[in-house]
């Protein structure tokens, strides 16, 4: 673990640079412990895949003390030796057609049928590594390498809310209509983010997710 200064208002705690469930589990544990600690001056703690961003007010923060606190909390993380089992959150998906305009192209590129893409996408339990891009946008991994797809060179100007996409070995759901470059294979009616809910985001870092094909909507 290494702590790096990002300007005068953020520290970045770096773990091993890898997209790895155990590294990410430690990242999430550290972020949670730092948040609970409510250190003076800390405005926000944001976990990434393998980094934790600690945003602080430079005038309210004793930097040496904050770095000490991070090191102290991090010491306990060696106890995080396994990834906790979690009940998967199920997200119903209508695959293909207007809901998943890239499904056929993904299938063609993967050299399989659209039904195979659906089966492979829905077969895995994904881990939510981090949220970003938009409120409630979860970066999940990893998809079956056979259906891993590069982003569109030219992003769409408008991707409908609820669209389920693939980018590289990641999969994700667009919480609101926005521009986007992911390969769209389906769409869900699940509300990914609602600031008025007690838990605004359907998914939080560390969650497990399964996509469930909705019956009667096979392409």
């Amino acid at each position, binding site marked *: 673990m290494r702590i790096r200064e990002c300007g005068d208002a953020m520290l970045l705690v770096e773990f091993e640079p890898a997209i790895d469930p155990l590294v990410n589990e430690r990242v999430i544990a550290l972020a949670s412990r730092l948040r609970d600690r409510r250190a003076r001056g800390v405005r926000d703690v944001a976990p990434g895949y393998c980094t934790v961003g600690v945003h602080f007010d430079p005038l309210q923060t004793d930097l040496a003390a904050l770095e000490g606190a991070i090191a102290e909390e991090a010491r306990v993380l060696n106890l995080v030796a396994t990834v906790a089992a979690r009940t998967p959150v199920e997200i119903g998906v209508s695959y293909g057609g207007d809901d998943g305009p890239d499904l056929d192209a993904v299938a063609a590129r993967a050299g399989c049928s659209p039904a195979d893409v659906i089966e492979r996408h829905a077969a895995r339990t994904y881990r939510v590594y981090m949220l970003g891009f938009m*409120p409630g946008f979860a970066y999940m991994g990893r998809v079956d390498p056979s259906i891993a797809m590069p982003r569109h060179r030219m992003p769409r100007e408008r991707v409908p809310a609820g669209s389920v996409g693939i980018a590289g070995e990641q999969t994700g759901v667009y919480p609101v209509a926005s521009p986007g470059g992911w390969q769209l294979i389906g769409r869900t009616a699940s509300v990914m983010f609602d600031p008025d809910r007690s838990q605004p985001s359907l998914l939080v870092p560390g969650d497990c997710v399964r996509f469930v094909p909705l019956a009667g909507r096979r392409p």
Partner: protein
Amino acid sequence: MSLGSLQIVKPGLLTSVQDLGRYGHQALGVPVAGPMDVFSHRLANQLVGNDADAATLEVTLIGPEIVIEAETTVAIVGAVFEAGCDGRPVPMGASFTVRRGQRLKFGRIVHGARAYIGIAGGVLTASVLGSRATHLVSRMGGLEGRTLRAGDRLPVLARPAPRPLRKAVGLMLPTGGRARLRVVPGPQDDWFHADALKTMAGVSFRISPRSNRMGYRLEGPPLARIREGELISEPVGMGAIQVPGAGEPILLMADRQTAGGYPKIGHVISADLPLAGQLAPGDFLEFILCSRQEAVSALIARERQLLRYADLKDAS
């Protein structure tokens, strides 16, 4: 407490409700937003007797026309505009009293890019996740998460500030569409050619027309990288200077996303970000390298300035 309203007659170019920002939810991907020039926002609040976190209106380049349906106190801080209330000129950087039904009209902009309209009690649109700040891309906060339009009505208190600070305050604004911003290098300056930092500190960058509240795209010499590819996406903060593959830097501003995968050659210091917020597309900026210690000293100096104004209020 009796309520009044601000009725937007003309919205101006890009006017939005902002407070200090929506901190505490970046783990869920919720961007912070908030003012592009936080010092002017805070001063506007101070002048009308508000807490720093009260919501102001951020006005951009072309100001609005507003009928103020409330007896209240108003202050305009930041970019210098010619502005009048019912045809009589109003001062910049000082508070003034407005009677119910008076019309506040912005004219020509003289200096800077963004002004903040502080109003006694703050703009009372609904708070979303603890903040009234508008984030335009995710359509959150402010009024329906968008810029203001003609016909909008914003709730405010109908009560002048009990102890407004009337004295005009000195403003720090870029002159001639140029600003020098201090930068602390890192954390990925080792992704760049050894002389990239030197290059960056020796030239002017032009703010591209494709810039907005999320970030400024900077046109200038490319900053040559020695490492290709991207980082595994990591949290980012305001002021980060990230450099995509093509080498054209982007300075992340108030509406930045919470995370990004481009390497960051440096960060503009907190004390100078408000100055960046007073630049517009077509303006120029230069970078000067500095240490974190210098950055904190500069911020303390700015904070002392704000505190001095607060002392003036206590003495009045």
